[in-house]
């Protein structure tokens, strides 16, 4: 944030159309153009749950300095339909522009200082195909010209997009784009020029893909899923790399089979993971308890969407935290991690596997639609080195570990972690049970249950599992501060809500507001004493999250007793915008609780 923060250092673009118009691929091409011009990127995929029609959009925030979120307003709006114009024109910034086809879009009520740039997109597109499907590439040409990016970068992106499938299609698209580019250039309409560096490409990834990459890097060789937005990109990627990576991908009949098969694969010795969204996770819950009870490690990723019930399948939320805190019946240990962005997701996957195996517990990862599916962000310098820790896996019996042919799989130990063997290992035979059991895995639930001589053992076995949380919490990461330490206002975020907070902090500080943010990624178990110390700041604390009840705020209060001074909560399904955070923080200065 100490970088050059002039207005010219960043740009926001929104392309809007109907589903089926190819707006997502156009958005990705534009993103590629900007990434290849050396800019940092953050995007949002304004999807609807339909295949054709309706209204979809793709938002790009790009900058010469790091960008984290969607930025402020829209500098360039490219509406391919009237609906796209009507939905977004009010967000166009002063000095911004609308590139539109006058035969399709009537740009009514444009604010002062917003330029309309009419380009006959459809007419140009029809020169190259019977249907005006290339109008979005013409628009990209116009947009690229406006941004002062050299045409070759766009031509390359188009070739990448279409070239492999059909060189002819790529060629026509390039010609169509060129017309749009030249037309705008000749209008002299170029309005914006950032400092581009064509020699420096900035790679981008969505959190879903980054997480998948991190998981296989960490040794994941079994992935199970049932189709569910917005987690499906993970299974798509895993399936298409199954051969290359020796992965087994299991498309279960439902999420119940998915998680049970995953736990089965882990029990058999594989690093195994499954993924879903909230509704699917709701079905998995009983089995998460099974993993904890049988002390079988499992990693589950929930890419959250707005609910409840079927909710808004293509919209975002941070509403599943309460479910993760209260998964299925009674108490058992679990780890809950919520990475902030793509790079974070990559590393979190590896940490999740090591933690799950070291402590033989379920590890839950919370991503969300905003960053997961279509939410690209720049990742630079990912460190591929990863140390695998499979915990207390044994392949030969140690003294006292085996008796009467049985391996003491659930031994009570000083650190509450028992040695673990995989089925098929000679001399280390054991049974595991979803019922309460003794150190050997045998029943405490039938003939011994309730007997006074067995009550202490039940207590010990239960405590053995629960006490792992004490060790886990010391290993988890404490929240990180963004901005200077010590501020009048601290925005408390978790997971992806860190991103809009960062941009708001930057903007507010330029206005002279003393503000920083505190970013939680490791949500449970919380290290209460350390967190209390960190949160004992003199300034006001405002919790920022995308749900109705303030689920993380409530967790903090429950675990540490710390009460926030205010909160900003959003639950309309759209991502949190920095402007909303800014507004909330400014209203807090007037002692008003803000709800956006």
């Amino acid at each position, binding site marked *: 944030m100490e970088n050059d923060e002039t207005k010219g250092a960043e740009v926001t673009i929104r392309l809007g159309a109907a589903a089926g118009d190819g707006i997502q691929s156009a958005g990705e091409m534009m993103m590629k153009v900007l990434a290849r011009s050396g800019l940092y990127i953050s995007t949002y995929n304004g999807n609807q749950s339909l295949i054709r029609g309706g209204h979809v959009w793709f938002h790009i925030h790009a900058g010469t300095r790091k960008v984290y979120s969607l930025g402020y307003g829209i500098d360039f709006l490219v509406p391919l339909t009237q609906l796209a114009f009507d939905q977004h024109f009010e967000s166009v910034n002063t000095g911004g522009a609308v590139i539109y086809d006058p035969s399709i879009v009537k740009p009514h009520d444009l604010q002062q200082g917003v330029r309309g740039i009419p380009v006959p997109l459809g007419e140009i597109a029809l020169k190259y195909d019977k249907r005006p499907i290339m109008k979005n590439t013409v628009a990209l040409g116009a947009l690229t010209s406006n941004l002062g990016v050299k045409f070759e970068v766009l031509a390359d992106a188009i070739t990448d997009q279409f070239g492999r499938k059909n060189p002819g299609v790529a060629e026509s698209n390039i010609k169509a784009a060129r017309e749009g580019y030249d037309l705008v250039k000749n209008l002299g309409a170029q309005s914006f020029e950032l400092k581009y560096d064509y020699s420096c490409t900035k790679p981008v990834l969505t959190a879903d893909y980054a997480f998948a*990459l991190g998981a*296989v890097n960490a040794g994941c060789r079994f992935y199970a899923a049932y189709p569910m937005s917005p987690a499906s990109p993970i299974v798509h990627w895993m399936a298409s790399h199954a051969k290359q990576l020796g992965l087994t991908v299991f498309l279960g009949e439902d999420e119940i089979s998915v998680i*049970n*098969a995953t736990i089965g694969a882990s029990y058999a010795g594989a690093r195994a993971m499954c993924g879903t969204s909230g509704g699917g996770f709701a079905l998995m819950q009983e089995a998460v308890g099974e993993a904890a009870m049988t002390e079988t490690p499992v990693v589950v990723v929930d890419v959250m969407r707005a609910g409840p019930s079927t909710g808004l399948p293509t919209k975002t939320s941070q509403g599943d935290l309460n479910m993760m805190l209260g998964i299925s019946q009674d108490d058992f240990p679990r780890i809950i991690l919520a990475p902030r962005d793509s790079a974070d997701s990559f590393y979190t996957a590896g940490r999740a596997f090591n933690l799950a195996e070291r402590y033989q517990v379920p590890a839950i990862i919370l991503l969300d639609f905003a960053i997961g599916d279509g939410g690209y962000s720049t990742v*630079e310098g990912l460190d591929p080195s990863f140390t695998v*820790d499979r915990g207390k896996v044994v392949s030969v019996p140690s003294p006292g570990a085996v008796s009467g042919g049985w391996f003491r799989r659930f031994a009570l130990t000083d650190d509450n972690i028992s040695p673990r063997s995989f089925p098929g290992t000679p001399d280390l035979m054991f049974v595991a049970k979803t019922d309460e059991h003794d150190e050997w895995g045998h029943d405490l639930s039938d003939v011994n249950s309730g007997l006074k001589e067995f009550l202490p053992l039940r207590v010990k076995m239960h405590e053995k599992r629960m006490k792992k949380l004490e060790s886990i919490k010391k290993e988890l990461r404490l929240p990180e501060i963004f901005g200077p330490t010590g501020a009048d206002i601290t925005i408390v975020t978790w997971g992806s809500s860190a991103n809009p907070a960062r941009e708001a902090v930057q903007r507010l500080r330029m206005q002279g507001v003393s503000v920083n943010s505190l970013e939680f990624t490791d949500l449970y178990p919380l290290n209460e004493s350390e967190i209390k110390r960190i949160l004992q700041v003199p300034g006001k604390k405002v919790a920022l999250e995308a749900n109705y009840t303030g689920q993380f705020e409530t967790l903090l209060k429950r675990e540490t007793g710390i009460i926030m001074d205010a909160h900003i909560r959003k639950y309309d399904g759209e991502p949190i915008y920095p402007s909303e955070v800014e507004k909330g923080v400014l209203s807090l200065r007037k002692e008003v609780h803000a709800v956006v």
Partner: protein
Amino acid sequence: MVLKLTDVRTDLFNDWCPGCGDFGIEASLQLALTEMGIDIDKVVLFSGIGCHGKIVHWTNTFGIHTLHGRTLAFAQGAKLANPGLEVIALGGDGDGFGIGAGHFVHAGRRNIDMTYIVHDNGVYGLTKGQASPTQRLGEQTKSLPQPNINSGINPILLALSTGYTFIARSYAFNTRHLKETIKKAVSHNGLALVDVLQPCPTYNDIETKAWYDGEDRRDASGKAVPRIYDVNSQGYDPVVTSKMPQEDFDRKIEQIFRLSNEWGNKIPIGVFYQEEDRPTYADRILQRIPTYVEMPPAKQDIFGTDNKSVVDLAELSRELAIDATEI
């Protein structure tokens, strides 16, 4: 490997009700494993919730007592991760055909090489005798206040329609038949179902051992006339191949339909369907991943001597990330 029954049986206290059909199933399973001389370290028993589930404690193999109804899902995951394991899943009729019916159906589509033995007694025994999915319409077992209002499902036909490649029925108290059937099922290359008719002496007072044995009907000499009969010993051949003429195949299916619906006076047991040439799930994976069987998920080296990941991240990220020259 030469085994004795005592190698396979544990000495833990068994708390099934006296006279339970589970004893017959346990003994048959253990005898089958003994006689097969199987590598006992490679055997894993997966059970569900219900009286049957405790069998994992009384058998000297790896075992896991999973959630109610989820045995097949769990076992399939384990077998996929390590196809070198000899996977035997056990379930009850409530467990497998009620709460777990979805998994039963979809397991058939995959034809993973494993065995599924169902302890089928018509009631939910461990929860005091409610009508299970195989109890017939209008039957009223001991703890029902009214006759059963639902029809019973036919496990043989359900398995047939969903892709099981070995489908058999046996009887808990015919341990010789059951033992032999389990041996065939375990040896079968593909997904095998053994539906075991199992008297529940406590809650099923209709399909009792005496009833199956025909104690209520006697021939002229006063000998009981058993209801159970072995179809295979009466000449029924269960083998089906992909090369057989369509009309032979159709005739076989008609026969299975008729046989599996026989009930009351005559109850057939035996192997109803056996198909050896349908590709197993492992065969199908092998088509895509030639190294799958030797290097399945549970057997791969996921880290090198330095504990570092073995994945070539650079290559993956290059294609995955948009414009990853170097991540």
